[in-house]
């Protein structure tokens, strides 16, 4: 059984997705061989303050232990410390997710220094989400590009003792980044090419890749099959499918 490091619960305005409750979402994932998932609130993507969406998500997933809540934090708001404190109080969180492109900030923002210190103090992992959809098929009224790979490289070099998880990174961006930095892991949700994993394992060890499906925005079955049917050693599949996530998030 797999662990999915990149899933969402809530409303997405750009597609008629199935409207999942936490319980229904967990059983949908189970149907595709996913026994645990890190889940973040989609409703926080377009809110000026993500907390109302985080609170709702904590309540929603409480009866569903298979879904591990990952709040979305905006470290550039004046209340960033309050956001983290409240989340720590509401649930035993293991990580926080940031969406620099949706929340309109750069990774060089001055508040990142204390933010990163607070994460380290509280033993919280950072998930840096690069994108939620392919810019080429984005809704016409949006013009959002993924978080620039050069910014991510600078960020990783600036915080050499941190080791974030990058979600939603494209395959060429990941390959480029892998040649520059080692202090990160990545999910495979937006990496795709013929023999994706065979290709990625030429630049990254299997210990740094995690299964992420970006469900329910992308097809869970399609994403899981990318791993299940990959022509890579079984040991690597187990690492990518669950072991790495267990280690990364202390599950």
């Amino acid at each position, binding site marked *: 059984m797999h662990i999915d490091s990149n899933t969402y619960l809530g409303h997405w305005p750009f*597609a*008629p*997705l*199935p409207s999942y409750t936490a319980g229904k979402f967990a059983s949908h994932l189970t149907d*595709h061989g996913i026994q645990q998932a890190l889940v973040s609130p989609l409703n926080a993507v377009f809110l000026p303050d993500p907390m109302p969406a985080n609170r709702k998500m904590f309540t929603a997933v409480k009866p569903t232990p298979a879904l591990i809540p990952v709040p979305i934090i905006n470290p550039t708001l004046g209340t960033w410390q309050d956001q983290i404190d409240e989340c720590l109080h509401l649930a035993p969180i293991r990580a926080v997710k940031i969406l620099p492109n949706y929340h309109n900030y750069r990774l060089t923002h001055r508040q990142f220094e204390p933010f990163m210190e607070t994460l380290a103090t509280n033993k919280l992992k950072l998930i840096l989400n690069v994108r939620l*959809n*392919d*810019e*080429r*098929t*984005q*809704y*016409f009224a949006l*013009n959002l*590009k993924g978080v620039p790979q050069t910014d991510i490289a600078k960020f990783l070099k600036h915080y050499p003792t941190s080791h974030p998880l990058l979600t939603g990174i494209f395959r060429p961006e990941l390959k480029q980044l892998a040649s520059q930095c080692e202090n990160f892991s990545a999910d495979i949700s*937006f990496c*795709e*090419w*013929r*023999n*994706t994993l065979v290709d990625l394992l030429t630049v990254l060890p299997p210990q740094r890749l995690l299964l992420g499906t970006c*469900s*329910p*925005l*992308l*097809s*869970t*079955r*399609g*994403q*899981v*099959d*990318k791993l*299940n*049917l*990959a*022509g890579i050693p079984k040991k690597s599949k187990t690492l990518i499918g669950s072991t790495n996530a267990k280690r990364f998030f202390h599950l």
Partner: protein
Amino acid sequence: MRIFDIHTHPILMGSGAKPEEIKQLYTEGKALGIVGMNSLGDVSFYGHCPDAGQCAKINDGNGHLQRLFPDFFTSFCHLNPTLGERVVMKEAERCVTNFNSKGIKLEKTNNASASCMKHIAKAAREFNLPVLQHTWTVHGIAGRRVPRSIQSDPTDTATFARRHPEVKVIMAHLTGFGFRGIAEVKHLPNVSIDTSAGYPEEGLIEYAVEQLGADRVYYGSDLPIREQSVTIGRILGARITPKDRQKILYDNAAILLGLN
């Protein structure tokens, strides 16, 4: 479950043409249940506007595949309508005669609503070939990047289909033309779509089946740009009936291309 992939580019960017590479592609495909692939050639290798000789070289690549695995590969011929009627008809005839081409593949040489598309319609009628047209929304970032003169929005592909109702059109790239593209061709019975390219965005397969019916949806991957396990998994995981799934993955292509 038998699967036929209507949209592949097995030889791409100079690689993939060696017999052992083609054998590997064949073996990997078979492992996924793929019983045949339709090759569309390396249509971007010579840039946006290949000349007659370059089109012929692209199409010869398909012939190469078919010689090695005749029961596995079919092909569509790549034509450039901007080169005029004589060139289009000559190359279409050559491909039908030499490679038993089953259709015509159009990329980004021109907009699908351009007047030169009448040459394509003529070739399609004369040789009884469906026309597979690259289509992508011009409203996203890609649309702003690629000039409309060569990028066909679903409205452009629909214009071509409306002008030539006797021609069977396959509008390529489901994720690329999206919900709006499906709606655009719903009332054009000569238009079908393929599921190739883009990420496996949720809801699109279901919407296509609901609006067009499964008879008008072909499975395609866009290999090697995409992963076939993902593009197939997207259809296996869609909330549609098993019968519709079978139509998309194999039956529709079998009827269109006269497969056994």
